């Protein structure tokens, strides 16, 4: 299996370290129900048989965290972005400035 690192290009997957599901979001520790939310964040997984967005760390290359979209049935890889891009892409659009408050 080869992974398309956004910075280094296509590299053998043995250069990378796997972290896991990239769809879970670290909850706000101050919010009500944080204990339950953290349990879900740390333990519960969608574990799909099919397309899966997952964190890989390019340890033997550029040492970037990346998010790879891979099929868990076929190991087909659809693409990869840096973890920063992935996080920015799913963050809600910034609220309009309320005029120097």
């Amino acid at each position, binding site marked *: 299996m080869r992974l398309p690192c956004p910075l280094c290009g296509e590299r053998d997957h*043995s250069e990378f370290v796997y972290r896991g599901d990239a769809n879970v979001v670290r909850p706000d520790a101050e919010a009500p129900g944080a204990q339950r939310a953290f349990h879900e964040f740390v*333990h519960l997984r969608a574990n*799909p*048989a099919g397309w899966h967005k997952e964190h890989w760390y390019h340890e033997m290359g550029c040492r970037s965290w990346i998010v790879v979209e891979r099929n868990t049935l076929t190991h087909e890889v659809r693409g990869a972005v840096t973890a920063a891009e992935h996080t920015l892409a799913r963050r809600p659009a910034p609220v309009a400035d309320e005029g120097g408050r």
Partner: protein
Amino acid sequence: MRYSALSLLVNAFSGQKNWTPVWREPEPKPEYDVVVVGGGGHGLSTAYYLAREFGLANVAVVEKGWLGSGNIGRNTTIVRSNYLLPGNEPFYEFSLKLWEGLEQDLNYNAMFSQRGVLNLFHNDAQRDAYARRGNAMRLEGVDAELLDQAAVRRLCPFLEFNDVRFPIQGGLLQRRAGTARHDAVAWGYARGADSRGVDLIQNCEVTGFLVEGGSIRGVETTRGTIKARKVGVAVAGSTTRVMDKAGLRLPIESHVLQAFVTEGLKPILPGVVSYGLGHFYISQSDKGGLVFGGDIDGYNSYAQRGNLPMVEHVCEIGMAMMPMLGRARILRSWGGVMDMSMDGSPIIDRTPIDGLYLNCGWCYGGFKATPASGYCFAHLIARDQPHEVATAYRLDRFETGHVIDELGHGAQPNLH
């Protein structure tokens, strides 16, 4: 029909043509007391013990493929009870005790052979860890012996003792541990369950659960609706896919584990040997093949095949531990999909749906657990109470913090 020396002899002289099918192939009935989803080792042993120990014979096992088509036929056949933590050790010892009487109980030759499991250690810290593990085992009444280098040399003179970086200092030996013929275990349980009236229904995929008012009423399958008062799910690597249909999100990831076998060789390995500084374990089948394996591939996978880097890695460790392995030729390698839990320990528990029970999270330790897993799951289903050796295997332990993490790796399934 019971097997005996006489029946083998009679059939040998009649050209082996008069054997009857070992189990029936019934059509599903409209309703059962219990439906067990999954016709692998754990599902079949659950059905067997439901019928034999708990007096429930109106039971069906529904299996998507054929009986024993999953991990029960894909593992490296090792049976042991050398665990450290109190939540695990009594359970695995209960399992080993069931193994010791299994063949007489089933009237089926599972080729269970107590040839010993030896875990090597290579430095002082590891010796301390294994001494602690051995002591924990002995506190539970389980046999464990700490061997020094000379004793390991007597047992396995062919190991690499001169490795400068990872010298073998000794090992922890459990003599009662060993291996079994994995397919025969599935067939023995299937035959035992069938002869006690359990319907084994193959090519029958569960497509949904019938739930009314928070209680289970049965399952929808590709062979029609089957009603049931209780449903138990034991589907290993497919756990998430099946339980999705009940709307449950679980602390499980599916990963692939590879195993390997060489050409048949003359007897050389006295038992199971595992390497302490890299995950590697090896034994020799009665046919002569060296059966070995290592770590899981390390990323989520539902493919029943592995990747080349792990093949190289396992063979490298094998060569480091036992250099003569390099002269053997590998015949086959294969992969099985493991239900890796978030703490490396299994789950045998109720679910939020009344009457729906879950048995999963075996990681890659499920084979040795087959008898006890079935026994304890049957106990839970029949009495609605966990068996005393399986009380720690709760589904909610991740939320409450009562995890059973043998390796101390945390919620990182690819490291367990």
